[in-house]
């Protein structure tokens, strides 16, 4: 836990690229069986007859894959306290078996917590990209981080 990044260590405009995740058909089907059993997430032959043109991952599976990349590449390296929410999440492209996905995040804004002097918040844009560099999923969220120095004891105010 020695060198976790705290809220003060970030600045607006910073961009992080992280991780790599190879998607398999087995995993797409296993996730869908438990959490999103629509037939175009389970059966490739059927999916080819639909608007999706072939089997693809549940959007919530894509969100989970992004979260895994973000946890390993960012959240678990920071004094992260979770997130109160996501303003918008959009799925632009189907995620297919064999896709190699990476994550990218940018800090759009920072502010101190109104209620907790030991917390700060970052507003971030997150993207999940495929190997062709296409954005398959994008969202805007708020991340809560612990401050290195609480406001009351002279911390930086934004």
């Amino acid at each position, binding site marked *: 836990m020695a060198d976790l990044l705290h809220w003060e260590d970030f600045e607006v405009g910073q961009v992080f690229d992280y991780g790599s995740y190879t998607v398999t058909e087995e995993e797409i089907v296993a996730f869908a069986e438990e959490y999103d059993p629509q037939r175009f997430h389970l059966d490739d032959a059927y999916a080819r007859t639909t608007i999706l043109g072939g089997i693809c991952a*549940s959007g919530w599976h894509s969100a*989970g894959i992004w979260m895994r990349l973000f*946890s390993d590449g960012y959240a678990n390296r920071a004094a992260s306290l979770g997130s109160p929410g996501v303003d918008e999440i*959009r799925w632009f492209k189907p995620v297919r078996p064999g896709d190699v996905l990476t994550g990218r995040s940018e800090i759009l804004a920072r502010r101190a917590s109104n209620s907790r002097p030991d917390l700060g918040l970052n507003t971030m844009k997150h993207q999940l990209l495929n190997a062709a560099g296409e954005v398959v999923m994008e969202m805007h969220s708020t991340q809560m981080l612990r401050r290195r120095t609480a406001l009351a004891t002279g911390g930086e105010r934004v």
Partner: protein
Amino acid sequence: MTGLLPEDIETGERIRLGETHLTRDLIVGFAAKFDPQPFHLDEEAGRNSLFKGLAASGWQLCALWMGHYVRWREGIIQSYPDPEGVRARLGPSPGQRNIRWMKPALMGDTLAFYATRTAVEDWKKPGWALTTVLSEIVNQRGETACSFEGLGLVRKRQDP
């Protein structure tokens, strides 16, 4: 009764889709794969976090809601005279808005899942409608733990 095709949806009806009891295995199983932050993996780390207990990943709550919604839809499809035809008319989701995790969902909680279709409008692609669904997840104390507004494409009724 409210239905699945755009022409059959009655907006405003709050539908109870089902419930899920959050066990340690369910929370940790998802978190180990998709959200391996300490407060989703370990009870003590959870107790020491803002959540005050082993908390389910917010993404798992969304995914659990989806499972309930899809199974509820499947139940209605079974009651249509042409199950294959109706099933083929369901489409993907372009996105979700305003995902809010208001309360932690902790090990031992029993969550109820609700859907309210709030709008049905024409989509840019002819033959398809865009539906808006308010999703709500409520714990056993009646507190809303999570809510979001989902968009989904639904094929319009087709001429025979």
